[in-house]
């Protein structure tokens, strides 16, 4: 089963073992500070913004065009930004660490 770690803007690490679902759902369920997921995961609100470290980018994959369009206008947008509602947890992501982006 896959493990994921969220690192908040305060540097707190939230480790979730046996993570299932989208990263946003996992973060919400585990009260990760900074991920509110207001729109419930449809890529509308960008309140689940994370940064994916370089070593994980290939496995996680890039944002699609609609996600990129939403991210583009976020003031904390970086090349490694993702909306984590669009990332489904999977076995090959076991050990993934993501950094929570600051709120707008």
């Amino acid at each position, binding site marked *: 089963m896959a493990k994921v770690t969220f690192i908040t803007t305060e540097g707190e690490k939230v480790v979730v073992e046996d993570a299932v679902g989208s990263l946003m759902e996992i973060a919400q369920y585990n009260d990760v500070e900074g991920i509110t997921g207001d729109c419930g995961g*449809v*890529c*509308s609100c960008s309140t689940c913004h994370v940064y994916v470290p370089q070593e994980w980018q290939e496995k996680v994959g890039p944002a699609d065009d609609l996600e990129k369009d939403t991210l583009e*206008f976020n003031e904390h947008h970086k090349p490694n930004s993702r909306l984590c509602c669009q990332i489904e947890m999977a076995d090959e992501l076991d050990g993934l660490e993501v950094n929570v982006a600051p709120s707008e």
Partner: protein
Amino acid sequence: MSDPVNPHDDPFREARAKCPVLAAEFQGETIPMILRLKDVRKAAKDHKTYSSDAPIRVPIPSEEDVRTVRQYPLEVDPPVHADYRKVVEPFFLRPKQPEVLEKIHALIDRLLTAACEAEEIDIVKDFAIPLQSHALTYLLNVDEKEAELWISWGIHVFKDGDGQSKGPFMEKYCQEMFEAAEKNPGDDFFSALNQAEFQGRKLTMEERLGYANIAFAGGRDTIIHTVTRIIKYFSDNPKGLECLRENPKMINTAAEEFFRLFIPLTHIGRVCPVKTEVHGHEVEPGGRVSLCWSSANRDPEVFEEPNEVRLDRKPNPHIAFGFGIHNCLGQHHARAIMRGVIERLAQGVSQIEVTEERELIEHESEYSRKVGYEMLRAKFTAK
């Protein structure tokens, strides 16, 4: 599942395909309406070019006949906007608290039980207006009895069917509530604003009235129309209800899809402080543009089959709650209510039969758009 064909659902379709803006006249002022999603988002993020520092003039048509106060934090720009918004944000986050959510669900259950027990109800008057008014008491943390007066303000405080704006009554009522809260402070919205510190000072009465004005007017017709249209959709598409009963995980995506398509607020304005060219249209200093949320939400460049209701649409990057710093403060409240309505309908109602309806159409010089219903009579059958 296709949307019932209604020419007023997407009146901007042709204009949007031809040109990024539609020049339309409102109260003698020509205003370019920005129609495509990406352009609307871009403008909503650019407060220097498209300013909200325009009391009474952010809504289109402007509201000088129906209110006297600037609405906070809607009608201010950065940097002061963030401080204004901070003052009231805790109240608008209340619907995320489990105990508040529980009250909203209990209210929906109560109203649905009454709907099923009655032979027939008017969904607008007997369900959506009481739901909105009572739920607002939970948001503002005031006595639920206050809802009875708010119910009498009708669908829209500023322009309800009897032709008389309730705006002046509402301003007077709010002033009295602030004065009463001065004498007997509590944990409610009015007391909190009386006590609030804003940039090292207290808020003036005019500022407090400006906050209250939008708290009452802003989330009123929007919630009422969305609730009504969701119920109408399930009356026309009972299989949708069945589908959600079997797949409760789809409730969130369904709610977002309804927000996208049923957005009652056609658009909102911004003022250009200097001469600005907006996709080929020149706007004079002090002139306005419109951010047309309702058109952007049906942009075929972004949404596949934009006029089709897809209860599982994901991604769904709609801007029904606006975009950028001025995004709707009441969105958590709206989501809590709509998700609750969908869930409770799926669980407790087997059939909704509409017997009589009167659509509410917004008629302007360049378009006529359906925003909701004035009346929607229906029979509910419990599951």
